[in-house]
């Protein structure tokens, strides 16, 4: 299981949180996720054999947010 924190830009409304959370819930390989509105970050833990952090970032970007950094 890999843990990453993704810093986003453009998370303006708190409904963004729900959107990203539900997206991640439906993403295969993502075990757990937490979207933090206040700091604009997403914490995910996922199975690297099923999904990569780049896939996850790309899926989030598709929702209209910019991924600033991943660590």
């Amino acid at each position, binding site marked *: 299981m890999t843990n990453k924190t993704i810093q986003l*830009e453009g998370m*303006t409304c*708190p*409904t963004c949180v*729900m*959107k990203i959370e539900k997206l991640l819930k439906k993403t295969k390989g993502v075990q757990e996720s937490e979207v933090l*509105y*206040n*700091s604009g970050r997403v914490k995910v833990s996922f199975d690297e054999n099923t999904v990569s952090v780049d896939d996850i970032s790309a899926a989030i970007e598709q929702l*209209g947010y910019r991924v600033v950094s991943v660590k």
Partner: protein
Amino acid sequence: MFKLSKKQIVWITGILALIALILNKVVYRDLEAYATVSIGIMILGTIIAGYNIFKTAFVGLRYGVIGIDLLVSIAAIGAVIIGEYWEAQAVTFLFTFGDYLESLTLEKTRDSIRSLMDLAPDIARIRRNGEELEISPDEVIYGDLVIIKPGEKIAVDGDVIEGSAYVNQAAITGESMPVSRDPGEEVFSGTIVESGYLVVKAEKVGEDTTFARILHMVEEAQDKKASSQKFLEKFAAWYTPAIILLSIVVGLISRDIRLALTLLVVSCPGALVISTPISYVAAIGNGAKNGVLVKGGEIMEKLGRVKAIAFDKTGTLTEGKPGVSRVKTFDMDENEFLRIAAIGESYSEHPLGSAIIREAEERVGKITETPAEAHMLIGHGLAFTYEGIEYFIGNRKLLDDQNIDYSSHEEYLNAEEELGQTAVIMASEDKVNGIISIADTIRPEANQLVADLHAQNVKHIVMLTGDNRRAAQAVADELGLDGHYSELLPEDKVSALTELSAEYGEVAMVGDGINDAPALASADLGIAIGAAGADVAMETADVVLMSNDIGRLSYAMGLSRATANNVKQNVIFAIIVVLVLLLGVLVQSVNMSLGMLVHEGSVLLVILNAMRLLNYGRKDKRQKPEAVKVG
């Protein structure tokens, strides 16, 4: 389809909107031929600005989330269908523009923590097997020798083993005045060597350093949702679909699609939902920069509400080490008296002796002379010879033994002891030269703090201590406290707190976090001071003052109240805006574009208002605790 940045979209659609506005309001009236061109431009503007809104609304729907973008999409498409092209263009442009400005200002607020992260060290110079290497701080291991030169950042927590330097610890304590660090003293990762050089033995590295833990805690604190925030988010989740339903109902009843669409636009709950978290983020960021770590928005608000504060004595209100509090001499200059006493004491290693030497050195400079002859009289003091005169320095027993008469000073000695002082007497040639009163000295900023807290309307300030009643009374009187509890065991402190909170409601406990951990944990609000490096204190306390400067408590109190006010202003403002807009729609004086303009404007205002907290207490916070400003 479009690979345009938000900024480009704002510019393009802004220009299109301007052209459409001119064509509509100025030219169109005269030249019918422009109608097609004008409509074309308006539709183009709607599509460019709306593309991303439609897309996110659609993606959101796929995941079962109904957000504000869906409301805007329905309104824009609806407006095009009923031929209100201008409204469609204006609404999508204003929404995009507002969203762009919001993300700019929001990132600025969120940056308050990212600017902290920038203080993290990125390189460490270490010495392994006699060789100097530059490596990443993450690769340093426990026990490595880290070398830091002027202008460089310390990359580990550890003890100085070589060299001496002035270190700027602002990253940890918020204190920009550099402190001197010599062998045996502790330094922290993230702090900067301003002058001198140090060799530090790494004790904590990477994620374990105090700096990394502070960062982590600030992040956690900013993301901790206050109950009001949870409520607002839940509210938003139900509110948006409810508004869609309401609009459909209104549309069906009134048969006025325009009214229904306008209702959709103005009811977006943006400002309300954003109002609380954004103020907290700004306030916590401000605190962290000033060496005050507040663990979450809820605590940020709670701190300002506290009506009673209990302080630990030793190490919190006092320095925790003995210092000279008074000197009385008889036929001798005070400084000369202290200088001679210090020369004698340079022979002893007694803590009272070091207090005398510190005081003398502060007054007359470094003491380098040593007594010609000296010997300890254990339990009594010491005898020494300086410039041919024999001196005795110590307690009453010493003078009794030497048959020196001090009966005329008995009254003064008793009075000093009544004040919790330890009296040290020096005598020569059969007569008393002077008396030095020594006690655990009160922190210089403690007096001001108590006055400030009283001014900030904290009703009851007390002290809890394990010390005897006399010493406690003396400190409580000096500081003007409202009460004190003395001779307490650690568990007694907990019951004293229970007693206080029964009488005054929420009570805050302030302590150094080492021997006060149970009290800090059991208080409604635990505040640890000087906690840099003290892991347990940092973990258990709700509020952490990184430095020893206890005066910061008053600043934290002010920040807390400013935050509570800020949140209140934002919430009330957001509710009023929604109500006024709704009313405006019902009396048909607000159309879709005006509604969107006001709505986006209100969200921006809320963010800008919260951003004021980033600057709270920036000027002159030491002299002027902002008690007055709050209210």
